């Protein structure tokens, strides 16, 4: 039997349910519909069949964006799965001032990607600190074109993403490390296992599920990259627009007089297809855990 009026639960979930319908369910369906139309920011909206997808097949910028996404993912995946774990192990020990260190590592996480990209843009500038210092050391003669070379720009953005992501994934690892039993470590130490050996045979198996979860999160967020590339390239997508990401293309077509909401929706579906692999893996992991 229930102990409240029948409409009370509905009253309480109503706002969230409205939001769910208006800002989640409806846009999902509408993306599917729009992808088959020629909707523009100003007018349009007629059914055009597969025209948007035909256009996508011929789109060189899309091909570049897909290559960029894959490179982005392949570099971020190992580094952002392993480095935060190593840092978490260092930070885990109950040292005095540990709160300060945690917060310091978390600072790049709470800063906006725009702020971080502007800071790195200035560091990596032709006349910025990195190039200036390297020239002063005599390591290089001319400035390295970090922000104006097709590949260097991509790798600059990648290193920025990694730098910003370390703290975020470290926190997830920290709570997982708390569950690895201390006795196992002690037993392994008694048996003469060194720190490296203990890392691979005690810590890694202990946080295995978290590692899988994080590798999925890293892959998906690498495929969704936007702000870092946008700000570092000043919105241009780098030389010849070859450093666009998928989301940058979606943004490009979603506004202004040159916009094409139908095509942007088709690109959104491409993004969905690309991210679905890691997502399915995540769902399977969830099911296993439950």
């Amino acid at each position, binding site marked *: 039997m229930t102990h409240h009026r029948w409409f009370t639960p509905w009253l*309480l979930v109503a706002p*969230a349910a409205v939001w769910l319908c208006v800002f989640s369910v409806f846009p*999902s369906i509408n993306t599917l519909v729009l992808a088959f139309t020629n909707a523009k920011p100003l007018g349009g909206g007629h059914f055009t069949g597969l025209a948007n997808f035909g256009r996508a097949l011929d789109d060189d910028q899309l091909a570049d964006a897909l290559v960029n996404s894959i490179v982005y993912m392949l570099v971020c995946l190992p580094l952002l799965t392993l480095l935060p774990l190593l840092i978490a192990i260092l930070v885990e020990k109950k040292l005095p001032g540990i709160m300060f260190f945690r917060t310091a590592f*978390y600072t790049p996480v709470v800063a*906006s990607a725009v702020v971080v990209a502007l800071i790195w843009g200035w560091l990596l500038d032709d006349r910025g600190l990195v190039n*200036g210092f390297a020239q002063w050391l005599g390591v290089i003669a001319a400035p390295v074109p970090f922000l104006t070379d097709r590949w260097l720009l991509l790798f600059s953005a990648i290193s920025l993403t990694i730098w910003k992501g370390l*703290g975020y994934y470290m926190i997830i690892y920290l709570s997982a490390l708390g569950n690895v039993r201390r006795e196992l470590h002690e037993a392994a130490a008694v048996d003469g296992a060194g720190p490296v050996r203990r890392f691979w045979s005690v810590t890694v198996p202990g946080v295995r599920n978290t590692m899988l979860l994080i590798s999925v999160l890293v892959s998906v967020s690498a495929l969704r990259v936007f702000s870092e590339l946008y*700000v570092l390239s000043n919105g241009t997508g780098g030389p010849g627009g070859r450093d666009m990401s998928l989301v940058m293309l979606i943004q490009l077509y979603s506004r202004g007089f040159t916009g094409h909401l139908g095509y942007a929706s088709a690109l959104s579906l491409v993004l969905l297809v690309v991210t679905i692999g890691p997502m399915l893996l995540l769902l399977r992991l969830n099911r296993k855990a439950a």
Partner: protein
Amino acid sequence: MLALTVSPFLWQLSTSLKSVQEDIYTRTPSFLPEQPTLANYAEVAETVPVWSYAANSLVVAAIVVAGNAVGATIAGFALAKLRFRGAKLLLGLFLATLVLPGEVTIVSQYVTVRSLGLADTLLGVALPGAIGMLNVLLMRTAFQAIPREMDEAAIIDGATAWQRLRHIGLPNVRGMLSVVTIFAFIGAWDDFLWPLIVLTDPANYTLTVGLQYLNGTFSANPRLIAAGTMISFLPIVIVFAALQRFFFKGVEEGAIKG
């Protein structure tokens, strides 16, 4: 290691305080400004209305924080503690939305906001995120962790749903609620892509969009951009530093319970 995370921010702070006379392009720049000055902060405000951008960001963040603190909490409570028809279906829908990256629906999200007449408004920026589906689920998890016996005792005493929420629910979900509100604030303050799509008039820009506008249009002087980034960065760091105890505690609790 620590230097690697913090020093870029300090370098930017230092650049923002350097005067026009000081050569910032030299190959042996000094870490401390020779003559620290706040002139760059005044000048950046003359170049773009950076303080009204900050106010715009604050308005958006306030709506998002309030919406999530109320909307996600009451919905999470109902889903966890009250029995009603359709609860399972609703929960399934909330879960399903998590699989979809936000960027996939961002175009039709914009179409929706535009048809509501909210294109190029701060309300249009704030509204879609004002009740986050993930936050509803997080709050539900937190309410579920409260022992059933406490509720049963309250029901026997004749407590209404509202009284159970206020006197049993809320005091026990403070940790998760603080994580949700802190994340809501940070997310709204830092967001770039969505306001970039919704806002077209430079007068309406939020800080992140305004900073990119400053960078793209007036990129001649790194000191000004540095000052602008600090105006965006310092408030969030101060908020976070002040609340970090609750944040890390909430994250740990959530990890243990969830």
